[in-house]
């Protein structure tokens, strides 16, 4: 996360504490991103071993979440942050919750990859899933970039694009229903693919949340639960 456009704090230690938090959030974002990437890869390439690895690596993200949470609590208790500093701390606390949930979804992808790798695969399912996955990965990348560079325009763009992920998800859902109606034997597998799609769609939602936090952090305006038209006005 870039330091805000302001100068440094008079207290060097405070400056350092905030910098530490920022760099940890970025590290956590990087970890989450690689987990999602690996989970997707395991899924589309039927790589059970990779899936297993993803499913068991989530603890790293969780540990970071606890560490950052702790550091934020300390800053609030000891430094009483105000204005942009306060917004940074509040945003960080919320962001890491969403990042941790994305990590959980990635873990889910890993587990499902292990199960799906063990069964026959119908290529049709996975092209769609891959497509959805690409969208979600782009959203995650965009959200993390916006967070790192405090880029409000990018954050708004990514938040808006969450609709596309939702549409993609709906399309996949319809396709799965068709499969299931055509051949009831495909129901167990279709359901598993559906869980995957659901996990990806949730990741998209978390990315949108992070983007909204970025707007709040930079502009001090809360754009949650407002129509995008209003959000544009907030800029």
């Amino acid at each position, binding site marked *: 996360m870039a330091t805000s456009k*302001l*100068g440094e*704090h008079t207290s060097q230690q405070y400056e350092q504490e905030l910098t530490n938090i920022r760099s940890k959030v970025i590290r956590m974002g990087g970890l989450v991103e690689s987990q999602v990437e690996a989970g997707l890869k395991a899924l589309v390439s039927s790589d059970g071993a990779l899936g297993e690895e993803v499913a068991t690596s989530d603890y790293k993200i969780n540990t970071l979440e606890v560490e950052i949470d702790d550091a934020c609590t300390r800053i609030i208790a000891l430094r009483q942050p*105000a*204005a942009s500093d306060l917004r940074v701390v509040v945003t960080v606390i919320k962001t890491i919750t969403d990042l941790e949930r994305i990590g959980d979804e990635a873990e889910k992808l890993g587990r499902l990859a292990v199960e799906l790798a063990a069964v026959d695969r119908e290529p049709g399912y996975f092209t769609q899933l891959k497509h959805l996955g690409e969208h979600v990965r782009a959203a995650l990348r965009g959200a993390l970039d916006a967070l790192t560079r405090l880029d409000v325009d990018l954050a708004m763009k990514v938040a808006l694009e969450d609709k596309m992920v939702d549409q993609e998800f709906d399309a996949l859902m319809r396709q799965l229903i068709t499969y299931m109606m055509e051949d009831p034997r495909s129901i167990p597998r279709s359901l598993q693919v559906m869980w995957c799609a659901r996990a990806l769609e949730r990741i998209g939602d978390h990315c949108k949340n992070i983007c909204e936090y970025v707007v709040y952090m930079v502009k*001090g305006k809360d754009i949650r639960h407002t129509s995008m038209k209003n959000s544009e006005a907030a800029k």
Partner: protein
Amino acid sequence: MQKSVSIEQPVMDNMQPAKSIMVQSSKDTDFEFTGTVGNIAAANPRMVTRNVDVFYGEKQAIFDVSLDIGTNEVIAMIGPSGCGKSTFIRCLNRMNDTIESCKVSGEIRLDDKSIYRKKQDVVQLRARVGMVFQKPNPFPKSVYDNVAYGVRIHGLASNKMELEEIVVSSLRRAGLWDEVKDRLDAPGTSLSGGQQQRLCIARTIAVNPEVILMDEPCSALDPIATARIEELIDELRENYTIAIVTHSMQQAARVSQRTAYFHLGYLVEVGETSQVFTNPAHKLTEDYITGRFG
């Protein structure tokens, strides 16, 4: 009348007119003032100031400050040392008159009447606009007489009973009654620092002012005494209008509804306290409240 210029007169000795010397000129820095950010007007103003300039001799301490102080609101003045916030509130009850070299120009009105008009009785003004100082400064008298003093001078009580009533209710409102009711004859100076400050507040409210000015009222107090005073400020707000100068940003955030940020004699920003502390509009305000200078 001549003898008692002001009920706060004994106070003048331990105030620091030296502060005026510390005021820096704007030429010292690259700060360029482009007008106050935020809404200077209050919905229901009790005091109105417009284009106030203050000079200490040659040196200008306040530049063109315009600000309303709303009825029943607590407005906090914050800013680095020498930014003119104390100078500004001391204009509001003409406390600066006591500094020979001090010149005030511009408009300052209380309930729509200029307080610098020729006919203004300064003693009367200071009864209506009371002041509490940084260091508790009880008179060298008993607790009772500290509070009764101003009431007697201003002839606010017609008999002993009434006087006693005012003293007791003032002490109660200042949250001090329970602690001093058994030692009203003890010298005011025998109380603890926090109690002395509350005694000073009781003394101020005894003369039934409309506005109370507080110049860093808690800077000499411990956290518990501070919390009591802050609690008291909140209660007093129902009946009075309060302007408080404080170096504690948290205090400003806790007690005030509006916050004004001063910088090198300029009023840089004024706004709702919650907005100023979460999303200030001016970069200097942001720098100051986040501890980037000052």
